[in-house]
């Protein structure tokens, strides 16, 4: 930062970084390295290099704007420190008031998608038509082709990944690791202790 402006301007990587900054500030959703490279007419490797450079500058504690890797791409967001101020001015309509049923349906689609309404209903044991319609309306899931039988299948959208702050679906915890309470013994013993002798 203390270098003379003239030198900064002369560095081609800096120029690329500034172009990327401009693209990201205009974008309303994450841009992939490939998209950025195409827009800049540059090598993806050089774009990654410039993004790393930007990432150092736009990080928590150093800037009010944060560069984050999310939903398979790169995007700017507000720093967490500005969250309170943001909350007074901005709404978060996408995730407001998601019901338990909606979260379970989202989980099914995120983990097992693309899957159809009958498949989700079989897992949850109840009809899911209105829940699915609500999630589609929020933009968290979207249609993704049809089954052989003709039922529409659904998958989660990049917006879902963005709302939940996921780089991609692969960062979700493994389903096999969930639902298994390892401390059952410990809890049984704990209960036994509590129980009046």
């Amino acid at each position, binding site marked *: 930062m203390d270098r003379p402006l003239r030198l900064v301007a002369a560095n081609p990587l800096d120029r690329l970084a500034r172009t990327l900054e401009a693209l990201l500030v205009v974008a309303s959703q994450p841009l992939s390295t490939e998209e950025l490279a195409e827009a800049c007419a540059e090598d993806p490797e050089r774009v990654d290099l410039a993004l790393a450079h930007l990432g150092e500058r736009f990080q928590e504690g150093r800037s009010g704007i944060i560069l984050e890797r999310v939903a398979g791409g790169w995007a700017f967001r507000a720093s967490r420190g500005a969250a309170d101020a943001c909350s007074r001015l901005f709404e978060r309509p996408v995730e407001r008031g998601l019901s338990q049923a909606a979260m379970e349906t989202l989980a099914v689609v995120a*983990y097992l998608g693309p899957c159809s309404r009958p498949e989700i209903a079989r897992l949850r044991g109840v009809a899911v038509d209105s829940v699915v319609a609500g999630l589609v309306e929020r933009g968290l899931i979207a249609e993704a082709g049809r089954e052989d039988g003709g039922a529409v299948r659904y998958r989660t959208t990049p917006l879902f990944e963005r709302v*939940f702050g996921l780089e991609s679906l692969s960062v979700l915890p493994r389903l096999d690791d969930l639902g298994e309470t390892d401390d059952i013994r410990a809890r049984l013993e704990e209960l036994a202790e509590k129980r009046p002798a």
Partner: protein
Amino acid sequence: MAMPVRELELDLEAFEGPFDLLLALVLREELDLGEVDVAGIVLAFLERLAEREELDLDACGEFLVLVAALLELKARALLTGEEGDLEDLDPAEAAEELARRLAEYRRIKEAAAWLVERLDEESDRYYRVGPAPLAPVVERRLAPQDPAELAKALRVLTAEPPAVSLAHLELRFPPVEQFLGRFRALLARRTRFDFDTEVEQLTRVEQAVAFLALLELRKAGEIELSQAAPFAPIRVQRNAEPQTERTGTWTARSA
């Protein structure tokens, strides 16, 4: 405040503790479901429900699903070894399938819980959200075209199309009387004949009309028809005394 079903405290003879622990033990087969008083669980839930002013539909739905699965599981377990089969599945298999589904549902619930937690952690992330940008319009590249070729193609289209022949649509039905006469003449000479052999040489339409004639004769009681099996040759036999009474029966039945 939401009422977590999994934390429902139970005080049953066979088990004392939260509901989700009971589920976990049942799924791990560390607790025999046959010993568990499911009605007791329902009572405990209803008591908890009554303590609240508001009806928590989510909790009720979750509870219903879990208790229904538990009940079915228990029913299967109790019926093991008996003759009565439920839905063709053998009880052990059915119980296993139910247990599998229950475990699957539990995992999904855990996944949903993880998502809720994640959403909470990420609630201080603000970012710009907009509609998806317009997809770039794909330019359709056309191969270079020769105007003369286009004119040639158009000329073909402007030519008068040949008149369409409807000849094949005209079916000529010979009169039924023709066959009535023919069969009667035949029956005057012989007491019986084979219908199939008789019409073998005829066209399909003629065969159909010949069959109509056969039905007419049968209706009038002039002949008896027999056929050994579907698609077997139809045998026609002259009726010694035409019976008008039988004709009535036939008409009524065939109506």
